[in-house]
């Protein structure tokens, strides 16, 4: 059989692999010097100071995060219950090396680490998006054998040139979306929103920021027309409204619910917080398929994976003493970026976890919603977030993603291939900062980008 060449893919991988040109081994009795050029585990390490017992717990959570889930029924009862409808098999499918996902380059390529949210205009009983009656609130492209996947989403890229004040041009791309193989009827006039998976390091610290801190941040008077509001969402554990902080529209109140939501939404794994399989009334084969227990992810497993993610150390800064990076940090403040991408947050008290308690840390986010302008608008409200608002993306880790993830796209839909492209897509409350960037000279821009690369 003739094989079609996969040269472009292979050359990309080869170039990627060249970063780690240490596929070497020692002959018997001789050790090779084998330090990798770039440490790809940088987002996978625990906060310092775990006890031996905590370290074991961290590892158990890590195993679950790396686990490929199994179709029920199975002998592996602890990890069965995939689907019946799902996007990917494992958490690391979308968060490879705990890093960030990306968007496919071509319409026919599958979304390996991104997804499409769906809803109808209106709100559900908790004030969140109104799920599509046949497809729910997320397109699950995959189904276990016997259960048709919901359909396929395709990204089509469009391009344009952006010109900076000094004449530099930057090619920008933006996606449009289409669907095929829809298995449960027409979508009709459905609101859609793309999501590229973010990296997961440092989430425990973000979880530990007190609500009152976020409310105070929202109340602060800010320059350049920047506002910033909190989302108010539904805490499934307490049944009460809560300030949102996770999800690209801050639609999840805490890390535990965010994890449980991803399990059920992305992998079809039920948990104590989301006890229902993700089958709609139209999906009869889905509803009839065997499940992997009720719930499929036990409370203990949810605790362990929550512990793991809460205790992942934030990405460390690099080259922060470099004059160019320091200069870039100053420009970051001068341009107004730091108004939303705040360099410092302080966590509250976390019972039994001094590593997360009363910590000052630098995520470069305020966890607030901001109007990002019409170009980034998805037109899909989510609780109090309107169709133009997005949570300020944490910038920590931005500089290590290139080394970790081959497929990398910034912003919610992965359109930005570089930090500069991401800046140029900013609008709305960030319009002033974007304009300042456009006017900045080449040296200033290079310094700013070097600073971002150091995060």
């Amino acid at each position, binding site marked *: 059989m003739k094989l079609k060449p*996969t040269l472009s893919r292979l050359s990309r991988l080869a170039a990627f692999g060249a970063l780690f040109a240490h*596929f070497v081994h020692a002959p018997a009795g001789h050790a090779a010097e084998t330090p990798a050029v770039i440490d790809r585990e940088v987002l996978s390490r625990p906060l310092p100071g775990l006890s031996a017992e905590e370290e074991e717990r961290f590892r158990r959570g890590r195993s679950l995060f790396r686990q490929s889930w199994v179709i029920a029924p199975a002998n592996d009862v602890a990890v069965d219950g995939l689907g019946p409808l799902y996007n990917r098999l494992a958490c690391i499918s979308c968060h490879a090396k705990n890093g960030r996902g990306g968007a496919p380059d071509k319409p026919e390529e599958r979304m390996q680490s991104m997804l499409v949210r769906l809803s109808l205009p209106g709100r559900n009983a908790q004030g969140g998006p109104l799920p599509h009656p046949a497809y729910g609130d997320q397109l699950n492209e995959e189904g276990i054998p016997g259960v048709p996947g919901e359909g396929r989403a395709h990204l089509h890229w469009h391009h344009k040139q952006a*010109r900076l004040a000094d004449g530099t041009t930057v090619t920008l791309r933006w*996606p449009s979306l289409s669907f*095929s193989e829809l298995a449960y009827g027409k979508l009709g006039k459905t609101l859609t929103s793309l999501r590229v998976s973010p990296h997961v390091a440092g989430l425990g610290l973000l979880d530990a920021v007190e609500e009152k801190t976020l409310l105070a941040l929202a109340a602060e008077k800010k320059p350049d027309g920047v506002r910033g509001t909190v989302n108010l969402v539904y805490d499934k554990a307490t049944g009460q409204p809560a300030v949102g902080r996770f999800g690209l529209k801050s639609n999840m109140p805490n890390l535990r619910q965010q994890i449980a939501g991803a399990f059920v939404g992305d992998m079809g794994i039920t948990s104590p917080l989301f006890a229902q399989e993700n089958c709609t009334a139209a999906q009869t084969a889905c509803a009839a398929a065997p499940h992997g227990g009720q719930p499929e992810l036990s409370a203990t497993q949810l605790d362990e994976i929550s512990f793991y993610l809460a205790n992942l150390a934030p990405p460390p800064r690099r080259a922060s003493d470099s004059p160019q990076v320091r200069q870039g940090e100053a420009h970051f403040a001068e341009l107004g970026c730091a108004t939303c991408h705040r360099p410092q947050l302080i966590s509250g008290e976390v019972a039994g976890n001094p590593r997360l308690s009363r910590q000052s840390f630098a995520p470069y986010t305020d966890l607030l919603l901001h109007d990002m302008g019409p170009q980034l*608008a998805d037109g899909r409200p989510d609780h109090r977030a309107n169709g133009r608002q997005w949570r300020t993306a944490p910038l920590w880790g931005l500089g290590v993603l290139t080394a970790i993830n081959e497929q990398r796209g910034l912003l919610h839909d992965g359109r930005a291939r570089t930090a500069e492209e991401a800046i140029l897509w900013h609008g709305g409350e960030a319009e002033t900062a974007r304009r300042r960037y*456009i006017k900045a000279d080449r040296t200033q821009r290079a310094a700013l980008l070097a600073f971002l690369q150091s995060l």
Partner: protein
Amino acid sequence: MNIPFKPGRRRFIQGAGLLGLNLAASGMPGALAKSAPQTVTVVTSYADEFVSRIEAAFEKAYPQYRLRVVWRMPNDAAPYLQQPDHGGADVYWSASPRTFARLARDNTWRKLPIDSGALPRQVGKTELGDAAGFYTASEIAGFGFAVSPPALTQRGLPLPADWTDLSDPRLAGLIALPVPARVGFAPPMVEIVLQAYGWQRGWALWSEIAANAKPIERGSTFVTDEIAAGRCAIGLSIDFFVNSAIANGAALSFIYPRHTGLNPAHIAVTRNSPNPEGAAAFVNFLLSLNGQKLLAHPDIRRLPIRPDAYAGLPTRQFNPFAAAAEGGLQFDSDAARPRLATSASLFQQMLIEPLAELTPLWRRLQAAEQAGKPLPEVRRLLGAPPIDEAAANDPALHRAIGLRLEGENPAIPTPQELAWGETAARNRHAARKLLDEAGA
């Protein structure tokens, strides 16, 4: 004249319209109007970082096919694939030679749709496929030592070159040892030593190595974790875990000992595959030069089964074909396979269960020997296997222990196995008595 970038209003309306409301109602763009890709269902136990990359590359090379991955450990994969329709599976792709052989006996596979003459059939003494042509290796992995050179240097210890070096009492507590009865990749290591040194000497060596070891009950990265954390300086492992860790930044090295062997990971097509053409495409992709080169990815790091896939890799890259040509890799994995569960159970009963008791006895013996008081009978007793090799090769015994390694009945030792533990206990008791009498 420079015109600063301003988002075009028309473009915005176009973009927002495209995104906010989907295009499904109006059909697909022309590029996608062709028929939907056909599904190729692959059952595997490979980690997602491996599977996802193969999936992306395969679908790019063969856009007419789409992979559906059904993830199951070998113990779960076998009953799944033994269903009349194989659970809809077209391909089984996994690192479990035992499962491939077992399912071949059950007539689960069809003849492989490949030109078998184009690929090597053997590396050293490791067969890459079955003689009947139902399955073949898609990658191979070798066994050896993960080491932290600085941790050894600090203690004035040399780098180990072979298994015998691991019995050095200065390595006490410094060897991470994956428990063969618990960790899937570990059983062949037991047999590598037994084949290399013989039954009696091999078990004696394992006993002394175990006395230096910290047992690791789970596999994957847990061995390298112990070394990275500084708790151990050497870890017994299969190469790709360590090489991937190294490629990801771990300050480790991997040493292939002089006596080592390979574990082939196979691929097969189900007899009633619903998509045999797609299955053939997947098998051929994996075995192609392009497919084999993907194995060098930092998160995969398996050894290609094609000699030509080593061209272009760093010269210090371990090349099993070159090692075999120089007389290495004499471990016969096919010969060892029937006995793997038995030797893993012996290891458990003789060494792992009583490790807390065994270790101080070895320390006392080694101290006496260093003091010039050799105690050969004590040494014999501590290293004596509970049964001889002929008994261990009994097919009835293999059937009785049978599927233990595949995760079935994991916690219920047979009376025979318990008897091995009792024999080992009597040996330890006798050894202790002799040590006491010698004042050691």
